[in-house]
């Protein structure tokens, strides 16, 4: 009987299966659309209310609640979660929770560390409201620490394949859930990326959220194989794969999906980035198109041999159906390629500046992160990415060429190394290792705390500026401000630090400490409509304490090095110019009062305003 107490027997299942719509209810008739996905099995109460995410079904438009789903209900467990149904609010809750958890997992996998959302006493979790309001919109609200999904009636005259006037739930769209959830994660990783300091910042938020949603399409096996069969492996023509939020788009009478991965220009002449493209979704779609093209090119390269084998070397598929084995093999390549691109796109966050991101910075971060893990670029991922960005006119500033070695961030030779012993970095290792999710449910069962008291749940030191490590890093920054492109005249904040672990293809454990320093200059905040001029530096530290990369956005300060000061001045000019350009397009500018003027940038940075809904 002792055996029954053994770890092996008492362990809980690691995964929990749940059913979802793979795209949205409009595709419900498509057999590949009702699927079961697996997510981490965590302790979950009715809601679902997990440790980091909870679904609360309050309908603000009607002032009522809908009863929460209990995923541990025996009958529901037996069914792998509720059957997809538009008419049952509990299925909606299940789907929102499942997709949010799946997306979170993808981030954690790529980043090599757990992610914890911002929390306060009254808002200990990221909250998801599946039926928050009436309206054709959905948004992440940082103040509320929540994602709000709206519902609305489909266009009575032009509803596309929907029923005229039927209710459309944004919380039943895979793409909308992933998109909004990604906003929440990005906001956690870089909280200043919602301050519109240049045309790319908010566009990056939007584009990146679409990239994650898009690439996750390729993890759904059934849809993938169907589309490969239908398009003869030309997956860039398969609508279900490359279009985003189909039902939403059609239901709003637009006669098309909300957005697409390739609707920007033609293959020969892709739409290029230009200073006049300011609308954030439009600008973001150029980033999406670049990443998608890189994905598609790598995919094609990877299936070439399969196609040749299947066609006796001609490489030309005959008409008629493809062999199902070939379809499956091609699908495998497609989903693996999507996975590596998604990982690359997410990992790049560790190599991004803390403020004022541009698409060019993002390209450099992508190249650096990939170089770190795969120095040889056997798969041609970096090359394809660089080419796709170049074709769309996305150029980083201050690089001499688009060669790989000039795109990789610089190593600062002037900076003294950090002493890992002295800053007690190793203490972090244990915390991170211990808190990696899969362990929690199995190891802490006996002393599990009530889920509401998650206060002593300290996973992530970014919330803890008082830790010894934070203090040591701050001291280091003060001592080396000038060489870190930080202005000694302004206070320096250690706004984030974390250790990441990754396994390289050669089996080595790569460990890095990523630190973000930020500072701000408030002299023009009011003129700038409520957002300060921020400066900041990200450093990436190796286990030996060597500062391997320095990614800086300096303030325009006379105490900085000549080159840094100049870059700071250019950033200030750019921020002013961007403000002037958006002012001209802002209809409220004509009539806004002084209060509006001093807060206008803040108003524009609400993520709710990022959606092509009523806020245009």
């Amino acid at each position, binding site marked *: 009987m002792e055996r029954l107490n053994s770890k092996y027997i008492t362990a809980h299942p690691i995964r929990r299966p749940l059913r979802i719509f793979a795209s949205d209810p409009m595709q419900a008739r498509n057999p590949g659309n009702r699927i079961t996905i697996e997510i981490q099995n965590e302790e979950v109460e009715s809601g679902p209310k997990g440790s980091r995410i909870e679904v609360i079904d309050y309908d603000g438009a009607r002032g009522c609640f*809908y009863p929460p789903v209990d995923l541990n209900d025996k009958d529901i467990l037996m069914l792998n979660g509720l059957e997809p149904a538009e008419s049952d609010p509990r299925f909606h809750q299940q789907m929102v929770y499942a997709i949010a958890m799946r997306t979170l997992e993808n981030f954690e996998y790529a980043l090599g560390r757990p992610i914890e959302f911002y929390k306060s006493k009254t808002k200990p*979790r990221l909250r998801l409201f599946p039926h928050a309001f*009436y309206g054709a919109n959905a948004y992440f609200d940082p103040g509320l620490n929540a994602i709000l999904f709206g*519902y609305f*009636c489909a266009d009575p005259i032009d509803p596309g394949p929907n029923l005229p006037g039927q209710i459309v739930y944004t919380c039943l769209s895979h793409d909308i859930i992933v998109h909004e959830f990604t906003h929440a994660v990005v906001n956690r990783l870089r909280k200043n990326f919602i301050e519109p300091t240049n045309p790319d910042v908010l566009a990056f938020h939007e584009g990146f959220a679409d990239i994650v949603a898009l690439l996750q399409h390729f993890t759904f096996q059934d849809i993938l194989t169907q589309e490969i069969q239908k398009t003869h492996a030309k997956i860039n023509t398969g609508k279900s794969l490359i279009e985003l939020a189909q039902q939403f788009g059609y239901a*709003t009478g637009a006669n098309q999906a909300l957005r697409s991965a390739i609707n920007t220009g033609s293959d020969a002449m892709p739409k290029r980035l230009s200073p006049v493209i300011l609308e954030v979704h439009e600008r973001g779609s150029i980033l999406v198109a670049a990443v998608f093209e890189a994905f598609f090119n790598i995919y094609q390269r990877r299936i070439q041999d399969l196609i040749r084998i299947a066609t006796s070397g001609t490489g030309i598929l005959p008409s008629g159906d493809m062999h199902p084995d070939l379809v499956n093999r091609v699908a495998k390549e497609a989903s693996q390629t999507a996975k590596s691109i998604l990982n690359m796109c997410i990992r790049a966050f560790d190599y991004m500046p803390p403020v004022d991101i541009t698409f060019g910075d993002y390209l450099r971060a992508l190249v650096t992160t990939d170089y770190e893990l795969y120095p040889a670029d056997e798969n041609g991922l970096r090359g394809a990415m660089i080419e796709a960005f170049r074709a769309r006119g996305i150029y980083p500033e201050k690089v001499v060429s688009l060669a790989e070695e000039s795109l990789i961030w610089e190593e600062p030779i002037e900076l003294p190394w950090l002493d890992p012993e002295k800053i007690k970095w190793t203490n972090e290792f244990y915390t991170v290792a211990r808190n990696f999710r899969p362990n929690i449910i199995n190891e802490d069962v006996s002393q599990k705390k009530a889920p509401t008291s998650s206060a002593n749940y300290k996973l992530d030191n970014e919330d803890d500026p008082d830790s010894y490590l934070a203090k040591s890093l701050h001291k280091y920054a003060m001592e080396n401000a000038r060489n870190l492109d930080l202005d000694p005249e302004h206070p320096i904040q250690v706004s984030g630090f974390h250790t990441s672990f990754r396994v390289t293809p050669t089996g080595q454990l790569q460990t890095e400490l990523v630190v973000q320093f930020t500072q701000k200059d408030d002299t023009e905040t009011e003129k700038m409509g409520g957002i300060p001029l921020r400066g900041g530096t990200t450093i990436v530290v190796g286990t030996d304490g060597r500062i391997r990369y320095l990614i800086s956005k300096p303030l325009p300060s006379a105490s900085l090095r000549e080159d840094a000061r100049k870059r700071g001045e250019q950033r200030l000019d750019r921020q002013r110019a961007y403000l002037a350009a958006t002012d001209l397009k802002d209809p409220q500018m004509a*009539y*806004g009062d002084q209060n509006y003027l001093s807060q206008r940038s803040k108003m524009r940075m609400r993520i709710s305003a990022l959606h092509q809904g*009523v806020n245009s």
Partner: protein
Amino acid sequence: MSLQPTPSKLNISKKKSNKAGEPLTVRMYDVGFGDCFLLLIPKPDGKKYKVLFDCGSIKLGENSKSMKEMVKLVIKEVKDTSDGSPRIDVLVATHRHKDHISGFDDPAWAEVEVGEVWMPWTEKPNDPKARKIRELHARLAENLVNRLKVAISDDSTNMAAKSSFEMAMNAMSNEGAMNTLYNGFANDPQMRYLPEENASATWFTTPTLPGVTINVLGPSHDPDVITEMDPPAGQSYLKMVNSELNETMMHPLPFRKDWAITPDEYQIKYPFLFNDLSNDDRKYLELASFGMDEGMASVLDRALNGTSLVLVFQIGKAVLLFPGDAQWGSWHLALDNPDLRKLLKTVTFYKVGHHGSHNATPVEFVQDIMGKNVLAMISVNPTSNWPMVPKEDLITELQKKEGCKIARSDKPEEAVHAGFTLIGEGVIEAQVPI
């Protein structure tokens, strides 16, 4: 797109004007918050061609006469010296906002003979694209007025709602005035809806105004500009409020009724969820369905302003820019076109767009394009709902330009000081050399 007319052509028109050097005049009528400009071009026979730009107001100034009196004054002004009957050669209605056309809702116009009526292409009766835009604007205005009325009566201190309500009222369709413009003058004027789609040139001439070249800078048929006039946000807004106009005034139920639980019940059954949502948060969510009216009112305002006819008259050396209330879209296209940019550099008279508001005059135009000695007229009367109109920075920028003279309709003394003429109460005149 053809080039601008050559200077030689302009010289011909100069020869035609009778006494050498007699300037043309632009009269600005003080209509409070609105526009009414009369352009008088000297004819060889000593008479004048008369062009009226807009006639409307939404709020009279302290010293303004009533709109009816203003209309009377304008009609008296355009009486032909020979037979005493009023005649306007060209009547321009830049766009259908009340503050530009309300004066046409007056039977007095029935006695006026009009040579040509010019309106933006968005007013063309049978153009489906134009009709779609007009219908959107009308429906938006109606919905906004209804909803904001409720918001104001609920809370009379809600300044944002008041200001938005005014904007929506301004956009309400103006049947009386539009009827006059289409069909209410003494004769049957020639109608032009400008610019014509696929027009071969950005300019034209008309026998009604010999010697005048008219450049049409907007509203373009370009999809980007149309998006400004027909904002996608408008459609989604309507979708959102449409159902509300149903008898219930309630949003539709997303589920069968028996799914819903009251907050009290929920609190008892699911305290661990209920407690994670404070009362404040709940209120916030309740407002999420309603916060969009004010934003929408300004989107609509911009959309309608975006339909503004933007005209440049070239008469000899005089180059007069009448941009209506044009917005970013039209300006942007003009500033991006090297030929039109060149033309804008030669402007000698500028009717300041949109009562001097922020979005209607790009800084680039004032700082980099506008030349010396420009006469600028601003028809404006500050109103407490919109304290930032006119924008002081814009006036300061204009003042910085060498030789630039500015007349504001609400400050006639300052205008006289700057060199304009006050001809009767509430009428300021600029003399523009030909």
